[in-house]
């Protein structure tokens, strides 16, 4: 199976793995089981790899990964995710991770887009403007 064919098939499988617009673990399990039954070993690996990449990207799109320095309450994380849900028009769930290297504030990544409200980010932008 060519990489392009694997990518195309992975897209189709991703569509089958969604429930209410989000990736459902039970559907993913069912897809993997079906793949293992239908495809021989040498075809299965590239297909699974492409499928994994597609699922990973879709999960990242549905998540707001909030890196924060200092404490962040669950309500605050929910409010941040709610803001992005409203802006992007799709459900986004918060995933918080502490990162003291940010010094203060937080940084939110949804898919490939990063919104930086941290102190370290502002200092970096200041340094770049002085360079």
């Amino acid at each position: 199976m060519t990489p392009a064919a694997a990518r195309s098939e992975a897209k189709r499988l991703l569509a089958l793995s969604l429930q209410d617009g989000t990736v459902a673990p039970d559907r993913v399990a069912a897809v993997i089981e079906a793949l293992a039954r239908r495809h021989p070993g040498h075809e299965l690996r590239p297909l699974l790899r492409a499928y994994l990449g597609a699922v990973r990207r879709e999960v990242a799109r549905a998540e707001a990964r909030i890196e924060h320095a200092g404490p962040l309450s669950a309500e605050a994380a929910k409010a941040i995710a709610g803001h992005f849900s409203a802006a992007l028009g799709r459900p986004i769930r918060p995933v918080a991770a502490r990162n003291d290297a940010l010094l203060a504030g937080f940084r939110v990544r949804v898919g490939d887009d990063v919104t930086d409200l941290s102190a370290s980010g502002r200092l970096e932008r200041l340094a770049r403007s002085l360079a």
Partner: protein
Amino acid sequence: MSDAIQQIQKAIAGLDTRAGKSNVGTIVSLADGVAAIEGLSGVMMNEMIELPGGLQGVALNLAEDTVGCVVMGDISTLKEGMEARTTGRLLSVPVGKGLLGRVVDALGNPVDGKGPLASAERYPVEKIAPGIIPRKSVDQPMQTGIMAIDAMIPIGRGQRELIIGDRATGKTTIAIDTIINQANANRVGLASGDPKFRPVYSIYVAVGAKNSSIARTIGTLEKAGAMEFCVIVAAPAADNAANQVFAPFAGTAIGEWFMENGQDALIVYDDLSKHAAAYRQISLILKRPSGREAYPGDVFYLHSRLLERSARLAGKGSLTALPIIETQAGDVSAYVPTNVISITDGQVFLQTDLFNQGIRPAVSVGLSVSRVGSAAQIKAFKQVAGKVKGELAQYRELAAFAQFGSDLDAQTKGVLDKGDRFVELFKQPPNAPKAAEIQVALIWAMQSGYFADIAVKSVQAAAAALQTHLESAKPKVLGRIRLGEKIDDAGAAELKSACDTWKRSFKA
């Protein structure tokens, strides 16, 4: 110190405190100077990518799931899993007069150890060439200082003239001599205080050359006092292919600053053969389909969009390009040479045979052409050199009969004798360009028969003696020629008197 504090305070006051937004991706593979990055969903073609460790890259391949990013720097510091982010900017380089006398790399970073550049502006490396309407016809001379070229293959400001030949035929020497000649002319012109004088600034782009060659070139330019009017963009063979691909574009951006600001510049691309090879390497690594000689399908466009940016603009300045192409075994019908020949406004073809015969510069007058022609010559030059190309063509036709010297009629012998002397006159040592007025005077003397009774092997010495005599005895006549005046009867009389005096005292 207070300046630094003020600068920091100003930057803090002007700091945008809104959220910083960027688009990121993750490096999934690294190979041969190219990073495959997953993510970067918002990246644009040719956008600069910020990589860890202060490295920069350019997004050249936008595939469905990954972005092929050419890394401009040492890729060994990167690892799979590292984050890359878009910058929202295209690749740009510092420009301005602050770069004169400096050596920079393909990103515009100084590499000569002389500290930061004094430059306030940046120009994008990739830019759309001027259209048809903003252009002006080429009618101002770009004197190379090389008689064989200025007399028979004249180059104008805003022209693209290819220098093509096998290895070690003197291509780089011609380019360097041209740069030195501009510096010499600049010094004379600026010292004269003539308000109409327009200096020419030079940019030398070294692509894929040995570091020792680049160092030698810099030394030659410094010795000739040409570095103060010159910028060197260095992408040596040790640099990664991305730097070698972008270096000519960076040099062009530097030249465009002069052109856009009403000044004249000359850019030398040494050489575009290595440039094409570097582009081929990058394209193959990016898995782009390959065509003839494994070059990608857009190798013509690579050079056409580069060279089309050299032009003369109405109401502004000009950028003259001297691209260099190295042929293999004199094959001008190879892929990249034919591409560049069709793009440029003429070519100076250097032949190994001529070089080995001692005819240096080894310019093949028959195969060389300037499509701008005498429109780019000063009046005096057109007056004396207009017939030289035809006479030398006739000479070459008759040279086959030279072995039958005793059986030739007087006219044929005359043509052959004059041709031999012209060929000898046009020989020039390297790094010794001649001013236009001197060239005109020497050719005038040749056409007037002053060299007819001088032995061929003494022509060079005779020309040197005549030059010294003219510079000391007739500076005013030379000055008028330099300012573009025709040789009128009075001027011709003065030249005749000077040549008579010289001839009386010259002993071959």
